[in-house]
């Protein structure tokens, strides 16, 4: 039996991150392109710089006036917690969670710790640390 065959593809130059505006337009124009129910845009239309694995840490206890969601986030983030985990525990769509966290960052109620992302020149010591971490599992 012979397996089906594939044809390799080349990297696209430049690799464009889809702009929210374009994604929105396409989403409406072409069926088959999903559109988020919640979107977040800054002044320039760019998405907030929050990643699934941005770590969020509370800077203070919930203020008495805090909404239940805000109070819950601040309680959960006594220890660092990723945006993805917050979305999971609070059962909020990731994009809605992003909106909420952006507000909390602006209000200086939480601190965000930026993720490590893939670099053009990879960080070998990082990869070595990850390898050692995996071996300890």
């Amino acid at each position, binding site marked *: 039996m*012979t*397996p*089906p*065959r*594939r*044809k*390799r*593809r080349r*990297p*696209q130059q430049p*690799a464009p*991150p*889809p702009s929210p505006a374009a994604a929105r337009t396409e*989403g409406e124009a072409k069926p*088959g*392109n*999903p*559109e*988020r*129910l919640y979107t977040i845009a800054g002044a320039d239309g760019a*998405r907030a710089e929050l*990643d*699934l*694995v*941005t*770590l969020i840490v509370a800077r203070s*206890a919930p203020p008495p006036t805090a909404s239940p969601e805000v109070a*819950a986030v601040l*309680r*959960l983030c*006594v*220890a*660092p917690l*990723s945006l*993805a*985990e917050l979305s*999971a525990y*609070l059962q909020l*769509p*990731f*994009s809605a969670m*992003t909106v909420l966290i952006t507000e909390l960052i602006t209000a200086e109620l939480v601190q965000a*710790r930026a*993720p*490590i*992302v*893939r670099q*053009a*020149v*990879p960080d*070998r010591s*990082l*990869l070595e*640390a*990850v*390898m050692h*971490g*995996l*071996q300890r*599992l």
Partner: protein
Amino acid sequence: MDFNGSDAIPGPRTEDHLPHTAEAAAKIVIVGGFGVGKTTMVGSVSEIRPLTTEETMTQAGIGVDDDYGSDSKTATTVAMDFGRIGITDKLVLYLFGTPGQERFWFLWNGLFEGALGAVVLVDTRRLAVSFDVMGRLEERGVPFVVAVNSFPDAPRYPIEELRTALDLGPEIPIIECDVRRRASSKDVLTTLVRFLHSLALSGTLA
């Protein structure tokens, strides 16, 4: 601060709290077709109970999913399972199991753009399902390894025959695995990270 009181929101167990020293997190994406074992793999290596993050889509996104007898045509929510591995006091690794269709990927900011790399999980009974995913990763310059999840009734091909069929360069690791086993899933991840490290040494990572 403490967790006592009227906290109705389920949160991490105390033993699952990250240390306060955790400075940054990195992510690896496990991608593959429906039912290929992504969630199983996440669960077998994660140090926390696997969690699910969801994204809600408008109607425009509905209707072209795999049709394995599911109700995907009427679904409005895309779910992604993920797990976590503590690497050091300062570094955390997250694993995301994500649907193979690229049109879902942008629902989560930077899912692939920021990922260290990806594992393409394949089932030799439905090899062609993974073709598009690999092409998309190549186009985006996301380094990946191929893990063949060994289902008992699946056809077995020699690795080199698979390499030819998948049109993969000799440098890209292809490994067989049983994602139900932690040791096997760990091997897959280690293979990916070792591959990334080799790319770093040769300076070829795009």
